[in-house]
C-alpha cells in the first residue's frame, strides 16, 4: 500500500512561495491507482495550494509532480487535464452565466470522443438526477448543493484518471453533503482515484483509504484512515497546537 515507486501519482518535496511567504515547505505524498487519499489540516495549512499547484495554477519553486510515470511539474493546465487530472475547485467556481448543460459540456472540452462524452453526460445525470432537471438553467441560479453536484459532474466530464476534490462539503446543506459523499463512495467503488481536501475530518476519513495531515505547509502526520481516526494528534493539527 505504501509502495510509492509504483504509485500513479506522486509529489516530491513540493515547495511553493507567494512572495516572501512559503506556502508549501516541501511536501511529498503519493496516491495509488484506485485509492482515495485525503488531505487534512487547518485553514491555511496549504491544502488548496497543493491542489492548485498540481493543476498548474501555481508554480512550485522546488520539487516535482509525477503522474502516470512522467513529470508534469511544468505542464500547462490544459495538458494536465488532458493527461487525466481533473480538479473540482474550492468554492465550486462554476460558470454562473452558463447553463448546467453548457457547464458540463465545457467539463468535457479536453476530450474529442463524442460518443464517450454523450455516455458520460448520461452517467452524470444518473449519478446526480437533479442536474437533468436543471439542464437549461443558469448555473448561478442553482442552490449550493446543486452547484456542488454540478462542480463534481463538470470535473468528472473530463473522464479523469485522478480526481482532485477541494472541499466538496463547503456551503452545502447537511442532507446534501450526505448525498454528495454517497456519490463519491459510488465513484470509489467504480475505481476512481481521488485526492480529497476536506474540512470535515470524520467524513473525509470515512471515505478515504489513507490521509495526510498538513500543518503550516508541511506534512505533520500520515497513515491509514483507521489509524488516524483514533489518533489525538489529528485533532491537534487542526487546532494548531504545539507538537
Amino acid at each position, binding site marked *: 500500500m505504501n509502495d510509492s515507486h509504483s504509485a500513479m501519482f506522486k509529489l516530491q518535496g513540493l515547495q511553493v512561495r507567494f512572495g516572501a511567504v512559503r506556502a508549501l515547505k516541501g511536501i511529498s505524498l503519493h496516491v495509488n491507482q484506485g485509492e482515495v487519499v485525503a488531505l487534512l489540516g487547518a485553514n491555511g495549512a496549504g491544502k488548496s495550494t497543493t491542489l492548485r499547484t498540481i*493543476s*498548474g*495554477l501555481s508554480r512550485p519553486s522546488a520539487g516535482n509532480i509525477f503522474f502516470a510515470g512522467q513529470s508534469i511539474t511544468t505542464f*500547462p*493546465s*490544459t495538458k*494536465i*487535464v*488532458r493527461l487525466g487530472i*481533473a*480538479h473540482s*475547485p474550492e468554492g465550486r*467556481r*462554476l*460558470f*454562473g*452565466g*452558463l447553463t448546467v448543460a*453548457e457547464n458540463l*459540456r*465545457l*467539463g468535457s*472540452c*479536453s476530450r474529442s470522443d463524442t460518443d464517450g462524452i454523450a455516455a458520460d453526460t448520461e452517467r452524470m445525470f444518473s449519478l446526480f438526477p437533479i442536474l437533468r432537471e436543471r439542464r437549461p438553467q443558469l448555473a448561478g441560479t442553482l442552490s449550493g448543493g446543486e452547484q456542488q453536484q454540478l462542480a463534481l459532474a*463538470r*470535473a468528472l466530464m*473530463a473522464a479523469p484518471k485522478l480526481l482532485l476534490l477541494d472541499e466538496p462539503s463547503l456551503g452545502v446543506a447537511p442532507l446534501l453533503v450526505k448525498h454528495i459523499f454517497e456519490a463519491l463512495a459510488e465513484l470509489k467503488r467504480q475505481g476512481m482515484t481521488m485526492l480529497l481536501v476536506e474540512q470535515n475530518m470524520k467524513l473525509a476519513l470515512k471515505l478515504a483509504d489513507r490521509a495526510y495531515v498538513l500543518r503550516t505547509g508541511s506534512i505533520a502526520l500520515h497513515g491509514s484512515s483507521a489509524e488516524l481516526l483514533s489518533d489525538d494528534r489529528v485533532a491537534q493539527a487542526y487546532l494548531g497546537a504545539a507538537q
Partner: protein
Amino acid sequence: MSDLVYILQQMINAVSLGSLYALVAVGLSIVFGVLKLTNFAHGDVMMVGAFTTVLLIGVGMPFIPALFCGILGAALAGLLIERIAYRPVRNAPDVTRLLTSLAVTYILENFGILVFSSSPRNFPLPDALNESWQFMGGAITFTNINLLTLALTFASLIGLGWFITKTTLGLGMRAASEDMSAAQLVGLDVNRLIVVAFIVASGFAGLAGILWAAQAGVIQPQMGFTPLLKAFVAAIIGGFGSIAGALLGGFVLGALEIFIVAFLPDAITPYRDAIVFSLLIAFLLFRPGGILKPNREIKL
C-alpha cells in the same frame, strides 16, 4: 399622420445607428470579457478594415469580396496587436495595460497618416448601394447601404450568437470572461481563447469600420475614434464584458442620440455628445453593472 411618419423615419435612423454602435461595442466587450482590458486600439482596427476594403476596391476588386477581405485584414491586425503588444503585459497592472492600448492607438493612427495622409478620402461605394428607397412621397427614405448594414449586422450577430452558445470555443470564451482560472481547470487553452477572442472582436471592428465608412462616404485615419468612444458608452450602459449587454447598449445609445437630435430643442442638439458622456459617467457611478446587472460590484 406626418408626425407618425417622422417618428417612423427616426426609428429607422435609430436602428441603423444603433446597429453600428452595437457592432463596435460587441468587440470591445468580448476583449474586455476575456482580458479585462479597455482596448482603445479597437477603433483603429476599424480603420484598418475600412482602409483595406478601400484599397482593394481601388485595385479593382468588387465591393462584397473587398468587404470580406477588409474584415480579414482587421482580424489579422487584431491578432498581431495581441501578440506584439498585449501578450507581454497580460499580467501587468490595469493601468499598464490601459497605457499599452493607448500606445497601440497612437501607433496605428500615425501609421494610417503615414500611409494614407490625414486628409479624408472618398469611400468608393458602388452606385447600386447608393440607390435610395422612398416611401410616402419621400417622407421615409433609406438607401441600399442602410439595408446592407442592417442585414450584415443581424447576420453577423446571429453568427456570433451561434458561436458563443453552440461551439466549445465560444462557450469557452464566455467561461473565461467569467472565471479565468476555472476555465483553465476544465482544460480550456486560455492562450488560444484570447487569440480567438481578439480575432472575433477585431473582425467585428473591421465590419463596423467598413459599414461606418460606407455610410459616411469618407475614410480617414482617425475615423475609428468617435465610434470607439460611443461604443465605450454603449458597452458600459449594457454591462461591460457582456455580449448581450453590448448589443442592448448599442441600440439604446443609437435610439437616445436620434431622440436628442430629432425631438429635443435645437439649442440642446449640439450638446448631444456631452449628454451621452454624462450618461456614461452616471452609469459608472450608479449602475456600474449596466442596465442588465444593476447590482454587480465594481471590481476595484
